[in-house]
Structure formats: C-alpha cells, structure tokens
C-alpha cells in the first residue's frame, strides 16, 4: 500500500494523537505545580492520554507534588504516541508513520536500531543538501534499540531495550528515553535513563554480554545539542538510500517526495550520499572513514558542538588536516592521550591519540564519551586503515619532536 493513502485515511487519528501530546505538554507546562495525577497512571493507549488530561483538570485535590508534575510533562509510555499498530514489540508502523534507515549509523555497542518518523498531517519538509532536515513542530522521531538473540540468524527473535523519542515541540526539540519492560509490551519513560544487562550471539558466533546504558534526559542533549537541540541522523546524505517498504524497495528520499512529505528534492545525481561505512561499493576508504567519523564524532566535534573547546572538528566537510587532528596537540585529553602526542600522526595509527580514544574502553579515555562501552572493532579497523593510508600532510610550523620544556 502507498503511504499517501494511509496517511490521509488516518490523519484524524494521527492528529488526535499529536494534539493529545501537545495538549499534555501545554497543559502540564502551564499548570506548573498544581496537579498530582501523573500521566503515568493512565492506561496506555493514545486515547487514554486525553482522558488523563481531563482527569487532571478535574482533580480538585492539590498535593504539592510538583516534582511529579514536572516529570509528568512527558508521556509516560511509548504506546501513547500511537506510532505502532498491533503488538507494540512488533514495531509495525501505524499509518502515517514511516520507517527509515541511514547509510552510516552511530555505533551503539552493536545494538540494532529501528527508526520511524511521523510528521503532522498535511505538512511538508523542504529538502536541504547538508543540514538535518527542518522537520516541523509536531514531528516525532523514534529510534528503538534492540539486540537480536542471534546476529547470525536474525529470525531467532530479538529483545527490545529502549526507544528514544525525539519530539519537536513548539519550544523546540526534546529527547526522551523509554525503557522497554521485560514483557516487551510497552516502554516506560525513564528520564534518568538506566542500565540493562544484555546478551546475544555475536556475528562471529560467540556469546556476548554487555551492560547497555540508556541515556538520561540530559545525556540526550550531550550529543544532540549543538546550538539547539535537534536530530542528527536524518540528513539528505544519510537518508539517500534504498529501503524495503512493504510494497517494495525504493529510495527513501524519493518515497518521501512521492507521498508529499518532502519538497524540492533535486535530481538524484544532485543529492549527496553518505558512504556506508562498511560497504566498499559505496565509497573509497576516505569516504567511508569520513562518514564514520562524521556520524560517530562530529555531533560533538564541530565548531558548534560540545567538544568545540578541543578544536578538533570531524564533520565530513572539514578539509583542513590540522582541524581533523593531523599533528594537532590535545587540550583536555588527560589520560585520554594514551601517552601519544598528536591526535593524528599520518601513517601511524599507533602514535595517534584518535586511535587510542577509539580503541580503549576505559571510562575517562574512550570516545565517544557516552553511548558506547564496547569497542567498535570494525569501525576502529576502518579508521586505522585510513590513518595508515594518510599521506604526511604539509609539515606544520614547528620542528618535530617533543623534548618538552
């Protein structure tokens, strides 16, 4: 079936769900401290959201539980977003909800991810070539992290761990972590994040385990907030790929344009395409390494990102070798230097701080700082090859060596 039709057919439901969400936010925001009935006590589906608001409005008993009220600004259950049809764990997109994928994803301890987007009915997104698309207020992005029980046999089932919701409110984007229950029937808001023990059979057939850390509300901002909070993944270059829709395989951007979500999509030859970091058919070593660095690092390491104090900028457009770390001294690396002098020494990955940061799993040294606790073995190998192949750049101003003062 075509998304166009279903989006129209279900627009009223969709609108209701969104309106309810918005109303919840607005009402609770305005009410400040007065209410005592957390939305979390509501029964769970989209319609109950509005019921809970009514209940709150009718509640005559002030209990001074303003802390709970503050928390209750946000929907307590994933199911209340009405993003999925049927059993929630199937993650079957509801009408008007589009699944999508990206060319090169952020490494998250080998977790697999399922992504959907829902736009408010009747609105469009204007194409832009480099920045993240300017999704309208009301947009919901949901990214569900899960582990297949057996990565060599994906049909063996999976365990859903968390769903991160990004919600574009009138006041800007926010990010909310939802933690799946053991029964896999719903995911609950967990503003403070959490830690989940996970195990799976890895691609190499070995059993692996890990403590999967679910970020807290503020952790979300650590990656998503440059000058303002916004999504990272959905850029033209990263969305420019095929996707297996229920009615066939098609380029994602083309599909978005066809169903009227995306306007101004240029001819396909004009649309940038991020390399798939582990697919040689999609780009040479440099393109794949730069895509990997962009996705895994540049949300912090950019001129407007949280790590701009470091002066190391790793987004895909950076051309200056020094900005990329070539013969660049660190600032606040502390023990994260691994005893090395420069971020990148061309041709010498083992002398490059960047490699140490990626290869270590010591807290306080590893990069990214949050979001992983394992080493991305294949990603690290890619960056190793990239540094190995790097030609020594123009030699910087001072002579080599570091005898110190």
């Amino acid at each position, binding site marked *: 079936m075509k998304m166009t039709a279903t989006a129209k057919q279900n627009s009223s439901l969709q609108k209701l769900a969104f309106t309810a969400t918005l109303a919840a936010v607005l009402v609770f925001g305005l009410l400040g401290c007065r209410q005592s009935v957390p939305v979390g006590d509501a029964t769970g589906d989209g319609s109950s959201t509005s019921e809970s608001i009514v209940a709150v409005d009718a509640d005559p008993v002030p209990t001074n539980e303003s802390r709970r009220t503050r928390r209750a600004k946000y929907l307590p259950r994933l199911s209340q977003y009405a993003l999925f049809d049927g059993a929630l764990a199937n993650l079957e997109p509801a009408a008007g909800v589009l699944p999508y994928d990206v060319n090169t994803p952020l490494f998250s301890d080998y977790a697999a991810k399922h992504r959907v987007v829902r736009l408010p009915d009747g609105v469009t997104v204007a194409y832009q070539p480099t920045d993240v698309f300017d999704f309208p207020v009301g947009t919901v992005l949901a990214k569900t992290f899960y582990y297949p029980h057996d990565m060599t046999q994906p049909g063996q089932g999976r365990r859903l761990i968390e769903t991160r919701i990004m919600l574009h409110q009138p006041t800007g984007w926010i990010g909310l972590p939802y933690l799946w229950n053991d029964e896999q029937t719903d995911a609950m808001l967990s503003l403070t994040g959490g830690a989940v023990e996970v195990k799976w059979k890895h691609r190499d057939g070995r059993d692996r385990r890990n403590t999967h850390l679910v970020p807290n509300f503020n952790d979300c901002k*650590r990656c998503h907030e440059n000058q303002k909070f916004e999504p990272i993944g959905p850029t033209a270059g990263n969305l420019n790929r095929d996707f297996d829709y229920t009615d066939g395989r098609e380029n994602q951007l083309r599909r978005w344009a066809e169903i009227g979500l995306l306007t101004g999509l240029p001819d396909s030859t004009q649309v940038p395409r991020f390399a798939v970091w582990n697919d040689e058919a999609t780009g040479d070593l440099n393109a794949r390494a730069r895509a990997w660095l962009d996705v895994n690092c540049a949300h912090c390491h950019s001129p407007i990102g949280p790590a701009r104090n470091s002066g190391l900028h790793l987004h895909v457009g950076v051309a200056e070798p020094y900005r990329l770390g070539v013969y660049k001294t660190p600032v606040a690396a502390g023990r994260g*230097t691994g005893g090395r002098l420069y971020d990148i020494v061309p041709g010498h990955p083992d002398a490059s701080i960047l490699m140490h940061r990626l290869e270590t799993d010591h807290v306080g040294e590893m990069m990214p*700082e*949050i979001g992983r606790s394992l080493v991305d073995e294949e990603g690290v190998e890619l960056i190793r090859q990239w540094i190995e192949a790097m030609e020594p750049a123009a030699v*910087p101003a*001072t002579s080599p060596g570091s005898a110190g*003062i």
Partner: protein
Amino acid sequence: MTLILLSLGTLASIGCRDHSPMADSGAEVSTIADAAESVSPDATATISESITSVIMPGPEAQAQAQEALITAEPGDVIEFAAGTFEFVGTLSLDGIAGITIRGQGIDDTILNFTGQRKGSGGEGLMVKADRFTIEDLTIQNTPGDAIKISDSNEVTIRRIRTWWSEGPSEQNGAYGIYPVMCSNVLIEHCVAECASDAGIYVGQTRQTIVRHNRAMRNVAGIEIENTIGADVYENEATNNTGGILVFSLPGLQLKNGSHTRVFKNRLFDNNHPNFAHEGAMVATVPAGTGLMIMANDHVEVFENDIHGNKTANCAVVSFLATQRKFDDPQYDPYPEAIHIHDNRMSDGGKDPQGVFGDIYKQAGKLPMPDIVVDGVLDPAKLVDGKLPDTLAWGIVNNGDATFVNLGLAAMLQGKGAEISDDSGDYAAARDPLAAIVLSGVE
C-alpha cells in the same frame, strides 16, 4: 490552601514549594522545607519560589539526584545531605538557569565516583547552565574531570573539594574544577588535589576570579588557559608539579589568552614529579615550577610569595619552547606585555628539571635564577630589535630575585643557547591591568 483556585497565570509565575518525595518510593528523600512554608495565594506574586530537593545517600541517590537536576526549574536548590554518595555515572545539569547544588560541607558531603561505569561520560558533574552555583561538598575519584562546566555565564564554585583519594596518579582524571567556554566565573575557597592535569583549570573563558583556593599534589595547581580576563589571587599552591600556569595553546576556539593578574599568591615547593600522561600539554611542565606563563599576553604578576620551587620560581616562555608542532595562523605563540613586579622569590632553582634545567646546568651555574625567560620574541613585532612599548615586558622591584634569559631563540635556529642575565630589555614598569569585576562579588 487550595491551589486549584489560583489562576493558571499565578501558578506559572509563583511556581511552587515541594514538600514531596522525589521518587515514588520516596523513603529516602525528603525536603528541608517544612509545612510552615507554603505558596502565597497573593496573585501579584512574581518571584518564583524554588524547590529544595534533599538527596540522601543510598542506592536511589543517583536517580533521585539526576531526576532533580532534570526536572529542576530556575531557582531550585539540589541539596546533598551529609554522608558519602556512591555514583556510577555522571550527574548533569543542562539548560536550567539559576540552580544551586549544595552539600553540608567539604568534609561532610562526599560524592564518590569510584565505581563509574563505562559509557557514562567520566565526569562527576557536568553543567551547562547559567547562574549556576555549587558549594560545600567534595567530589572524588572521577575517571574524568570532577566538575566540568561549559557554556555557562555566571558560575560560582565555592568551598568545593575535588580530589583523588589514592593520591597522585596518571590514572586520575584530568581536571578537578573545570569551567570552560564560560564567562563571569568565581572560584573561591576550594581545595583541589591530585588531578593528573590541573586541579583548578579555567579554559577559554572570559572574566574569572580565582581566589582563596588551595591546590596541592596536582600536575598543575591552578591553570588559566586561553582565557581573557582573570584575577588569580590569595591562593596557595604547593607540592604540585607547577603551581600556577597561565597558558595559551594553539588550535582552540578562544585563540589567545590575555589580561590575567596573578597576585598575592603563595607558590612554594611545587616539586611533585610530573604524573601527567605524555601528550597532555602539562606533561611538558618540569617539576619544580612555581609560576609559568606561556604564550599569554598582558599578564601582571605581583606581590606573590614564590619560593622553594626547584626548577624555577617563575618562568615565561613561548609556545615554541615546547617544540610541539602547530598549524594555526591566528595563534600567537609569543608572550607579550608581561609585567612581573613586587614579588618575593627565594630558594628556587636548586635542581632544575627538563630541557631548561639541562640548558642551564650545562652552563655550570646553579641554582637556576628565580625568573627564567626563554627569550623567544616575535621577530615580526620588533622595532629596532625590541618590542614596542605596548608589548614590552616589565620585570621590576622583585627584591633579590635573580633573572636569566635562556636565549632559546638562538637555539631554535640551531645555534647554542645564548644565556644571559641581562634584564635590561625588561626594565620599564608597565601600567597595572584593570581588576576583574563580577556582578555581586566583592
């Protein structure tokens, strides 16, 4: 009182007092507010009343503290009770102005991060929020920085101790107290120990006062880096590798630090072996450095008591002295307009370390003089072989303090060092720098 009778507008403006537990279980959480405090029904009230959330030690403390920080509203206080808190992840405050974090005293409230998990950041406390205050507690054993505060205006850090309880080690976190890319920062009455980089580090910041602190057993006691406008006074730094550093490094957002006053400090016996990881810039600081200025401009150093630092009581060097590469055309590696006057210096240079020590020892004279300069000036700025008055140095009225110019400029050109005790080029006093004024700070 019935809140429901109040208008929404009033509710929004007066906020509310929370007497409730923060978590549903709630058993270990209470607030200090008592029942006598209540929300005024006065509809004209405009000042928000804040919530004070009291966090007690225990297994729920991490989630409760973090939730309080996430759901805080401007004016709130997050108060840690007395006791030791065991945290497994970074605590963070983001985007909410006017928050105070408070303990019961530097010896009474301990936030311990020994068991911090991988992937949770490494810092003890991360803050990005204006008008932030933290006071009266200890943060210890963080894998990374103890308190990192970035992009924040009006920051007060008061009576905080940051340290690593096992003593100096390269495994310790880099910084203790670490405001970066902030403005209007006050750090006072703090104690910073055992950081593998700097105990108190102010980076890429504008308008800072660092006063009445103690820094011991760090690589750098107090470091002011790529910062514009800092007053550093009445601090004590001892048994660090370097007592106070005023640095500008290349490749950063805020390019060239300047306008720092270092005065009335006591910098003595900063002879601790350097335990920074190689690669960190402070790894290049030789043990026994009292005060070092590198590549900064407009630095005024006066009325300090600097003694017993075995390499040099006071050194002023260019970034070129590090022999590190850099490629940043807007970076100025030369220190200029340095003014060192009316200090007391003694008992320094007895066992000078590092390249400078080697250079000087080869000259066959000990001790190393109190004031050491590398003598590397920017040839592009010289007029008749000298810096113009706007950039000239003044080294005057320092009592019996001795002086040496290591003549590193010649060495960098491949000649031998041209060591000289002639301070004639630095003999003119400079006008004093303006004091830093922070709103509400005396």
